């Protein structure tokens, strides 16, 4: 077990190196001048060819790739990701400022994925081929075919446009004022919902929550629709195993058979998929935040991409790739912890 974890940890730096190299290759498709533009906050420098040439040399932007890559990684290690004209601040600052909003969204989205996906999947399998099962399955297939951006717009249309319940953004104006300009609102975690509770401001908590629900639904529904299918087929397979028949033959209550005997074993493969789905949700962040103008990393990245702000887009890709690599590592290790058969491979 320990050797498996150590082995995974030893590979980690190589994967990270590979990912940075891949992103560097993408970045190198730009001309040195365009890459230079990502490092400076004063565009007028670019108009002066000599000054620009000096800067290109200073940042080693015209070096052949291997050397250029090393200099680039060094600048990344110094947290020098360049300047973001879109955010009007250094890229690293822009990232750290927006990260809590995105993390708040992603972490809360895990809850419905696991609860709803697994719960409905088990129900669907237990009521195999019933009307209930059919209804759940059809909902899942339709959900699976609904692209995030259309689903998000639908949610916005119904719950904000028509009902006026779940507004876009992260906070209402009055709450923004109280949180950022009020002075006596303390930021402990930078998760507004948690901070509001810690500050004993239930009104702000409620406001933040109503802004979060719609993006959470949008971000998580594809994942839970998928998880539901996996849970269902895994559950169906387990329910046909001999030990389940034995338990039933011995007269164990049906509820106990399902929840104690079947569910435990059926959920082992589901755990990996659940972890993978959570990691996969990172990709949906860009669209979800754009639809709801939720001021996190994804919204910023999409705006940067539209404005050809290469530095920000590359910085964002680096961060998300890192998050995905770490996320996958956590999933694999926790799977190995749950299922002792894994580390034999």
């Amino acid at each position: 077990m320990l050797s498996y974890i150590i082995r995974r940890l030893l590979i980690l730096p190589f994967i990270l190196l590979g990912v940075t190299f891949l992103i560097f290759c993408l970045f190198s498709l730009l001309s040195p001048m365009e890459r230079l533009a990502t490092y400076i906050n004063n565009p007028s420098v670019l108009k002066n060819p000599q000054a620009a040439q000096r800067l290109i040399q200073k940042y080693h932007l015209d070096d052949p790739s291997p050397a250029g890559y090393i200099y680039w990684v060094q600048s990344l290690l110094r947290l020098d990701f360049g300047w973001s004209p879109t955010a009007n601040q250094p890229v690293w600052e822009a990232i750290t400022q927006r990260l809590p909003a995105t993390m708040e969204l992603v972490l809360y989205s895990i809850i419905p994925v696991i609860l709803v996906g697994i719960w409905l999947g088990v129900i669907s399998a237990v009521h195999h081929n019933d009307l209930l099962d059919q209804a759940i399955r059809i909902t899942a297939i339709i959900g699976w075919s609904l692209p995030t951006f259309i689903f998000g717009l639908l949610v916005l249309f119904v719950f904000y446009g028509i009902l006026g319940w779940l507004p876009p953004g992260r906070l209402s104006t009055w709450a923004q004022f109280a949180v950022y300009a009020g002075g006596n609102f303390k930021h402990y975690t930078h998760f507004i919902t948690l901070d509001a509770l810690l500050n004993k401001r239930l009104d702000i908590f409620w406001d933040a929550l109503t802004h979060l629900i719609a993006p959470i639904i949008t971000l998580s529904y594809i994942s839970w629709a998928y998880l539901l299918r996996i849970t269902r087929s895994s559950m169906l397979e387990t329910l046909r195993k001999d030990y389940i028949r034995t338990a039933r033959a011995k007269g164990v209550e049906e509820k106990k058979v399902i929840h104690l005997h079947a569910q435990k074993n059926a959920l082992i493969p589901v755990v990996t998929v659940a972890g993978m789905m959570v990691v996969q949700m990172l990709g949906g962040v860009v669209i979800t935040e754009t639809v709801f103008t939720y001021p996190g990393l994804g919204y910023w990245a999409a705006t940067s991409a539209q404005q050809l702000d290469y530095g920000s887009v590359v910085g964002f890709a680096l961060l998300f790739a890192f998050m995905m690599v770490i996320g996958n590592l956590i999933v694999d290790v926790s799977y190995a912890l749950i299922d002792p058969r894994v580390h034999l491979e």
Partner: protein
Amino acid sequence: MNRIIKKLLNNTASLIGLFLLLVFVLIAIFAPYIAPPMFSDPYQIQRMTWDIEPQPPGFPMSEDMRFIFESLGKPITRDRAIFGTAQGGYDIFYGLIWGTRTAFRVGIITVAFSMLIGIIGGSIAAYFGGWLDDLLMRITDIFLSIPFLVAAMVLTTILGRGLNKVMIALIAFGWMEYARVIRGSILSTKEEIYVMAAKALGVKDYRIIILHLLPNTIFPVLVQASMNIGSMVVTAAALSFLGVGAPLGYADWGQMVSFARNWIIGAPGKAGEYWYAVFFPGIFIVLFVLSWNLVGDTLRDILDPRLRGEL
């Protein structure tokens, strides 16, 4: 093969999927008759008015637009926007009909090329094994380490706007799954006796791969491919929605949805006023993806013997 076709036709879900696909194919083929283009470039969505605000279904072409066509001496073959107009006066109906062609083009080209890359990489890795296998699979891992949509967005941003750039980006980050699937099935096939026999007879490696291994291992990849066409089209549409995909005014479903984005909420007091701007493009995208998913789902069930007769 016959068994598969029979299964596809016997299953209600896949039958609905096939029927929807057929409708889309017909729309794509007969686009010039369903929505005759009035410009030289048919993929440029026709504008019915200069108005920014979306106009409701049945909106007639505005006077000033009519005047332009008349002064150019071009016949006005369609003077009503059946599905209304999107932001900027773009005719939704026209955009959707010609967008069907765009969808098929994007889906088929990206899937075909990424499948080709995946098959070449995966079969080389599996057949030769050793360090080559390790290297190719580590490269695959690295490409998989960036969320697909994020990677595609970054590459499209760097390459610049345009549908071709979008397709390049989707291919560059879409081949890994095929490589893994084909590698897995070749690994289990390459120890078979007929392959050994071919090797012993001195058949060249590439001939063994192409003539003996691929025909026996390619089916799961084709299923994967059929399921991916829908998701590739969605990703391309998502990129257009984010504003890094097709150029402005190009007949593309994602762009039609992005036109609707600013209007979805409607004017105060008139919620849902512009429903058509998102409804029609949304329906087209959803049905397109759904049809591929239904067909692909059935194919997958047929392939997976554990689930036979189960789903």
